[in-house]
């Protein structure tokens, strides 16, 4: 067993992990990335579609290209990288936190759109010829186009909500371009088949209940599930980190620190991001906060952020009024010309126009020092963020 000591250990070498590590190194502290796969890049390596890097690199790249740009930064920053190494647990010791790692990868799981993406793009195996997709998450939409382009027939995308779960651009270029029907407010109510899927039954929701009379069947041999990503947090949970029931990620303060001092969270393990660019941006700030914590720079005051009307969650969960920073939120509603309203003690402190909001599109808001200079803070003040 080897033992190494670093100021900061980054678990996971995807977009967020690499961005966080590069920032820590830029500020002169030692840092290592522990990655369970045999290469850096995480999920980006199977996301061969374009749309990455517009914010970070001012050009439109595919996932692997975005990852390689960051790999170069990681190499330039002289960051130690441990590949094919899985962190089993995080434990407290007299020397600080200890990661217990074991070499090897994890076994494959269930058949999801993400797994199909890996089979087609990385392993070169086409999982079926006649496809129905359950859920309209981005990976499902991207896979609708990908399956069409490898010669399969995609018969439809079935979404339980009355609005799509994925980005609008993906509805346009992955479904509309190929005339793939999107069944909103519909569910797959039945799957039939002997050794292989033979057909599914699709039912419209009427008053929230699948309507049997209006149901129809679609013959198919493959069903891809694209019902949203869930942050992977066994490790943080076992370490005792408080997890939000809404995001399924850690609860973090204004410095992206979890309920356990010295453990920080960012990227898709904190909350699922629309774009790798946003995850990298958030991770860079997190790296800087980890460095500040090590240097004993802690916020004097933090104000809790509350998700108000029509807001599903705001991340992080606190703001430092002396050094306000960016926050991400998701709405519960679909609306054009919406208004973001921030209140402290029921007094409006900031408003922002949002031309269009929908739950699948993350909203980012950055508070400036000017925004907070007139706040009157009581000991129990809360910043409430709502959309109307």
């Amino acid at each position, binding site marked *: 067993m080897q033992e190494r000591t670093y100021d900061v250990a980054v678990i996971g070498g995807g977009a967020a992990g690499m961005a966080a590590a590069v920032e820590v190194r830029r500020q002169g502290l030692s840092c290592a990335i522990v990655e369970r796969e045999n290469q850096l890049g995480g999920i980006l390596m199977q996301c*061969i579609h374009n749309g990455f890097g517009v914010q970070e690199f001012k050009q439109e790249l595919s996932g*692997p290209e975005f990852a*390689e740009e960051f790999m170069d930064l990681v190499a330039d920053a002289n960051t130690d990288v441990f590949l094919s190494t899985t962190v089993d647990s995080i434990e407290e010791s007299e020397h600080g936190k200890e990661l217990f790692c074991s070499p090897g990868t994890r076994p494959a799981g269930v058949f999801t759109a993400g797994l199909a993406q890996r089979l087609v*793009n990385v*392993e070169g195996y086409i999982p079926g010829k006649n496809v129905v997709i359950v859920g309209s998450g981005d990976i499902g939409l991207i896979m609708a186009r990908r399956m069409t*382009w490898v010669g399969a027939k995609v018969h439809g995308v079935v979404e339980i909500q009355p609005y799509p779960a994925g*980005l609008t651009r993906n*509805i*346009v*270029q992955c479904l509309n371009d190929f005339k793939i029907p999107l069944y909103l407010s519909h569910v797959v109510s039945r799957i039939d088949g002997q050794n292989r899927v033979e057909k599914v039954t699709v039912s419209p929701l009427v008053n929230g209940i699948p309507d049997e009379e209006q149901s129809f069947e679609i013959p198919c041999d493959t069903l891809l599930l694209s019902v949203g990503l869930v942050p992977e947090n066994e490790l943080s949970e076992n370490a005792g980190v408080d997890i939000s029931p809404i995001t399924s990620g850690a609860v973090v303060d204004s410095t992206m620190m979890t309920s356990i001092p010295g453990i920080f969270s960012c990227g898709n393990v904190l909350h699922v991001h629309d774009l790798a660019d946003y995850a990298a941006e958030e991770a860079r700030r997190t790296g800087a906060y980890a460095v500040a914590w090590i240097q004993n720079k802690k916020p004097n005051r933090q104000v809790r952020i509350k998700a108000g009307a029509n807001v599903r969650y705001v991340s992080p969960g606190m703001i430092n009024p002396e050094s306000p920073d960016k926050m991400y939120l998701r709405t519960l509603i679909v609306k054009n010309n919406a208004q973001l309203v921030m209140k402290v003690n029921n007094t409006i402190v900031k408003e922002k126009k949002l031309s269009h909001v929908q739950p699948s599109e993350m909203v980012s808001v950055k508070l400036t020092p000017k925004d907070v200079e007139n706040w009157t803070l009581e000991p129990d003040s809360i910043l409430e963020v709502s959309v109307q």
Partner: protein
Amino acid sequence: MSAAETKEMICISCPIGCRMTVYEENGSIVVKGNKCGRGKVYGEEEYLAPKRMVTCTVATDSEEFPRLPVRTTASIPKETIDELLQELYSMKITLPVKRGSSLIENYHDTGVDIIATMTLPGRA
């Protein structure tokens, strides 16, 4: 084409997805609702002759890395996509390959190249 046709569209130049209205007026194309210059270009093209980026994979001679991801350097006319895909699927690439290297240069005189989007090593 009738001059009065107005198309509602969603820009796909980036993931923001601006909702735009595009129509013809006095012989020129008017784009409204775009937040940046790329939206104007996309709106005009989508109105007259739609183009798309293509991303896919091609076979390699490696067992460890059987597929090489590739993309077009710019969007290409929609009607040429199927032919390009067939051409790419019939290729077999010998590794190693460096990211950015061209598999096809100036595809059908469009000025668009097809490039590798991942660096893959050769046999060790």
